[in-house]
C-alpha cells in the first residue's frame, strides 16, 4: 500500500471536567491515503468531531489537551509545530467544513469577500486576483451566475447554497485534506445528494483526501471507500466499506447498521424489529477498565468488562477490537 498522506498514531485527548479527567479519545490510529474518501462513523459523543478538531489542532485548551500521540502530515508532526506554522496549515493544507454553514459564515461580509479573504490570507497576491479566484471557486461548486452571487450575503442564500460556499472556501487554497463534519445534516435530502455528488466530483478533480464524518451508514456506503467506526473515543473497527457493510465483526458496527431502517426498493409486508442498542454512550469520565461498549453489548462476557480488547486483523485491511473475535479466531 502507498505511503499514508496523514497518519494519526496513538492519539489521546483528555478533558478536565467537574467529575475528573475524561479521556475523550484514546489510542486512536487512523491513516489517510492519497486519493481516498475515508468515513468516520459513530453516535454523537463518540469522538468523531474531536478527532477532526485534533487534526486541525483546534481542541479547546483548557479544558482539553492532546495528551499523547502524533499526527503526521507528510512526515511532519502537526502536534509539535508552532502555532504560527499551524495557522499556515489550517485552511491551506487541511481545511474543514461544518454542519451548520450559517454559523460558520460571517453575516456582515459578502460570500465573495470571505472566500477572497481566505485566499489573500494564505497565498497573498492582489485583491482583484483573489476576487477572481473566489468567483471561479463559486463556479466550481456549482453556484449559478457566480459573479452575481459572490456579492450576496450568507442570509440571502439557501442552506444548500451556503454549504456550497463553505466548500468553495475550504477548497480555495487547494487543500490536501478536506474534513467534512456532518456536512449535510442540516440539509434536505435532495440537496444532500447534490452536495455529495459535488464532493465526489471535486475529490476526483483535485485529488484531495476527504474525511467524511457522519452518523449515517448510508452516506458512508455512498461516499467512502474505507470506514472507521468509533465508539466512546476508541476505534472499534475499520476496513473497506463494502467489507464492513456486508461482514461487520464488532457488535457495535452490527448495531449501527441494523438500527436504522434502510430504504429498500422492494419492501416486504413483514417488518422485523430494528436492532436496539440499549442505553446511551457512557459519560467519558466513567469509563471503566474494560471495553466501553460492554454495558450496551448483548454479547458481552466477563472478560469484556475487565480488560480493554486488543486489535485483531480479520481480513485485508480490516481490523476490529473485540474479545469475541479473539475467542473465535479470525
Amino acid at each position: 500500500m502507498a505511503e499514508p498522506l496523514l497518519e494519526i498514531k496513538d492519539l489521546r485527548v483528555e478533558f478536565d471536567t467537574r467529575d475528573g479527567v475524561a479521556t475523550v479519545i484514546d489510542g486512536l490510529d487512523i491513516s489517510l491515503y492519497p486519493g481516498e474518501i475515508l468515513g468516520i462513523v459513530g453516535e454523537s459523543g463518540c469522538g468523531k468531531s474531536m478527532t477532526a478538531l485534533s487534526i486541525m489542532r483546534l481542541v479547546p485548551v483548557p479544558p482539553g489537551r492532546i495528551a499523547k500521540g502524533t499526527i503526521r502530515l507528510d512526515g511532519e508532526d502537526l502536534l509539535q509545530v508552532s502555532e504560527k506554522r499551524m495557522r499556515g496549515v489550517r485552511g491551506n493544507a487541511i481545511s474543514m467544513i461544518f454542519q451548520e454553514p450559517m454559523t460558520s459564515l460571517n453575516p456582515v461580509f459578502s460570500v465573495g469577500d470571505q472566500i477572497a479573504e481566505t485566499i489573500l490570507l494564505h497565498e497573498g497576491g492582489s485583491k482583484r486576483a483573489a476576487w477572481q479566484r473566489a468567483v471561479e471557486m463559486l463556479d466550481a461548486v456549482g453556484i449559478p451566475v457566480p459573479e452575481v452571487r459572490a456579492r450576496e450575503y450568507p442570509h440571502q442564500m439557501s442552506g444548500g447554497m451556503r454549504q456550497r460556499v463553505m466548500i468553495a472556501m475550504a477548497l480555495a487554497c487547494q487543500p490536501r485534506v478536506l474534513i467534512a463534519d456532518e456536512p449535510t445534516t442540516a440539509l434536505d435530502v435532495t440537496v444532500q445528494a447534490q452536495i455529495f455528488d459535488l464532493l465526489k466530483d471535486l475529490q476526483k478533480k483535485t485529488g484531495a483526501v476527504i474525511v467524511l464524518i457522519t452518523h449515517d451508514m448510508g452516506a458512508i456506503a455512498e461516499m467512502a471507500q474505507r470506514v472507521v467506526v468509533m465508539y466512546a473515543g476508541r476505534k472499534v473497527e475499520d476496513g473497506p466499506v463494502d467489507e464492513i457493510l456486508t461482514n461487520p465483526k464488532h457488535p457495535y458496527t452490527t448495531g449501527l447498521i441494523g438500527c436504522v431502517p434502510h430504504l429498500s426498493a422492494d419492501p416486504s409486508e413483514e417488518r422485523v424489529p430494528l436492532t436496539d442498542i440499549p442505553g446511551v454512550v457512557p459519560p467519558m469520565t466513567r469509563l471503566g477498565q474494560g471495553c466501553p461498549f460492554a454495558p450496551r453489548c448483548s454479547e458481552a462476557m466477563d472478560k469484556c468488562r475487565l480488560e480493554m480488547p486488543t486489535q485483531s486483523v480479520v481480513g485485508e485491511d480490516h481490523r476490529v477490537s473485540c474479545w469475541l473475535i479473539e475467542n473465535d479466531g479470525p
Partner: protein
Amino acid sequence: MTEETLLSIENLKVHFPLKTRGFSAPKSFVHAVDGIDLKIAKGKTFGIVGESGSGKTTTALAVMRLVPITSGAITLGDQRLDRLEGEELRRARRHMQIIFQDPYSSLNPRVRAGAIVREPMDLMDVGEKSEREDLVAELFRQVGLRPEQQALFPHQFSGGQRQRIGVARALASQPDLVVCDEPVSALDVAIQAQIINLLRKLQAELGLTYLFISHDLGVVQYICDDIAVMYLGKIVEMGDRISLFKEPLHPYTWALLSAVPSADPALRDRADRIRLQGDPPSPIDPPPGCGFASRCPFSQALCTMEAPQLRTIRTGHSVACHFVSDDGVPPQRKI
C-alpha cells in the same frame, strides 16, 4: 377490506400572512398547506413525507388545532375539529395528542418528569384523581422509564429518555390519534431505533393511530402503512407502503428515493436515479401550475400552466402529475 376511518382531512388550506409592519393588511401569504385531502384508518400509521417547506409539519399542527386553519374540514371520529372553539375544543383535545421533534424544547425545563406526564390528566379530567398517580407510574413503565425517575427534571435525562417522557405525556390522556412530528430525527441513530420500536410496541398494545411526519424515507417506509408525499403544500402522491416504494409514480417521489444515500448496492447503482437541481421553491405566493415544474426533469409547457389533480391510478395509489399515464407508467420510465 373496509377500514374504519379515524381522521379525514378535506381540502385543508393553511395560509399564513407574511409579517408586515404596522396595521396595514398583509399582501403576501405563505401557502404552507394548499388544499390537501387524506383519510387515516383506525389503528394504522399514516406517513407524510417531504422536504422543508413542504407543509408536512403545518398539516400536523393544523390537525392538532395549533395553527389557524384557513379553510377545509378536519374530522376526527364524528367530530369536526375545525369547527370547535373554546370549551368544546379543550374537551376534544384529549382525543388527539402530539409528539414533538425536539426533545429538548418540548419539555418545560422547570417541571419534574412526573408532573409533565400527570398534567394532561389533571387538565383534561382523565381517570379518578386517586388513580392518576398509578396511571403515571404505569405510563413510565410502558415507555421504558423507571417510575422513580418521576422526580427528575428534564435536563437530567438523555435525549432518548426525554423523548420517552414526550411519548408518555402524549399517551396520558388516552388519545385515539397521536401526531408524531419528526419524533426521531433529532435523536442519535441508535436511539432512533429505540423510539421507533417503542412507538410500534405501543401501537400494537393500545391500538393507536399515528399521523407520522418525517423527512426520512427509510423511517417512513419502515413504520408507515400509508404514505403521502408532499411538495410545496400539496400532496403529489399517496399510496400504501408497498405500492408507493415499489412503483413510485411521481417524478418527485422518484427523485426523493434516488437522493437517499443507501447501503443497498442494488439501489445505489440503479442507472435511472435522477438528481434534482436547486432547492425547493419558496411557498410564498406559489406559481400557478404544478409546484414541482421548476425542478422537474420531465416538465413541459402544460405543467407551468395547469395544476395537476390527484387521481387514482390503482387501488390505494394516486398521483398528481400530468404525465403519469392512466395505466400507471410514470415519466421516468418512458425515456
